[in-house]
């Protein structure tokens, strides 16, 4: 299994566009945001977190653009299916690799940008775990979308699975309010962690069924 993770990283690391692209898009959105607020720079933090969550959502959507497509096109997925080892485990390892190379840096950048914008260190440091968990959830969901629309273009998959990601956005928005008012912030983290633990188990299973249906 360690070997599988290593190989997945090897593949992803060499595909610079796949992992650097989403991070750059995230950076660009974060830079573009203050430019749109014109001269009222002191009111920057009002809409900042909404933009942050949406930027994470968009960059995760871009990250999963070809998560399975390439392996599907060159026949790698077929080999994975006929191997004896569990296919859904392979899927979850893949998603983990993507999260580690894209989700984690994006979350860290989110922390830096929120510290830069709000100047509130304790608030910004709490953004970090929220971003980590939510980016993992988004990656799982969009991986599902990508598997559904394999080789039909990534936009279709994104449209189809975007509604599934909306509850997470709502929870993120609400947890931020809880953070600012300093009330039971921890329960939101636990809620997100709970849903993440369910998603981590279920999504790779469903994705493996879907990919098998594709290969038929």
């Amino acid at each position, binding site marked *: 299994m360690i070997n599988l993770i290593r190989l997945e990283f090897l*593949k992803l690391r*060499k595909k610079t566009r796949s992992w650097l692209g989403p991070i750059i898009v995230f950076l660009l959105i974060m830079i573009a945001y203050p430019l749109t607020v014109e001269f009222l720079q002191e009111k920057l933090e009002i809409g900042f977190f909404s933009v942050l969550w949406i930027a994470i959502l968009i960059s995760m959507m871009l990250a999963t653009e070809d998560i399975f497509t390439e392996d599907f096109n060159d*026949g790698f997925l*077929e080999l994975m299916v*006929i*191997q004896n080892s569990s296919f859904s485990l392979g899927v979850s390892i893949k998603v983990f690799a993507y999260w580690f190379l894209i989700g984690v840096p994006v979350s860290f950048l989110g922390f830096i940008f929120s510290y830069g914008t709000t100047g509130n260190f304790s608030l910004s440091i709490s953004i970090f775990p929220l971003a980590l968990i939510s980016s993992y959830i988004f990656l799982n969901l969009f991986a599902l979308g990508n598997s559904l629309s394999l080789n039909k273009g990534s936009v279709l998959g994104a449209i189809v699975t975007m509604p599934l990601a909306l509850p997470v956005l709502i929870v993120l928005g609400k947890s931020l309010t809880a953070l600012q008012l300093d009330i039971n912030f921890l329960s939101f983290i636990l809620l997100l962690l709970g849903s993440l633990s369910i998603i981590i188990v279920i999504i790779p299973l469903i994705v493996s069924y879907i990919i098998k249906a594709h290969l038929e």
Partner: protein
Amino acid sequence: MNNNCIISAENIGHKINENKLFHNLSFTLDKGDALQIRGKNGSGKSTLLRIIMGITSPTKGNIKSFFSNEVCYLGHKNALKGYLTLEDNINLMQLNRHEHLDKYLNNLNLKKYLDVNVSSLSFGQQKKLALLRVFLNNSNLIVLDEPYVGLDDDAHNKLTEFLNSELNIKKSLIFTSHISCQIKSSCLDI
């Protein structure tokens, strides 16, 4: 049914969107036997291979397989990553610690390309690289889809020789090919 049987198919048929590909196919494959599947373009040779490996399920009939470890499969898509070097691709196939790796790299004239990106290799060289998976296999059943396409005479002979030696040690082989070759095999026409 004897113990030697690896795959037995009874009256299997397959159709896509009501288009019949083939129907009422029956065959058995024993250990140490080779089966060549012949047929016109679009007659469903590749689909039959996928049914044998269990990726696709037949729409009619049933197929039983009795092999224990995984299949060694090489299809039209050779599962190589163009943006990785040859060495990394061998890593990816998990063959990098194989004892005979060096021998076959020399044999197939691939040794000098180890640092080259696979996308800059020629088609035949890529095919040879993909065939490494076959040469270094450790499974009882080898399934090949058009293995001879794109190979030069040298590699062609080496592959035939290798497959014959595998059959001698009681491994089974299923392949599709247009050309007749020097492998002692029974034929299945679809």
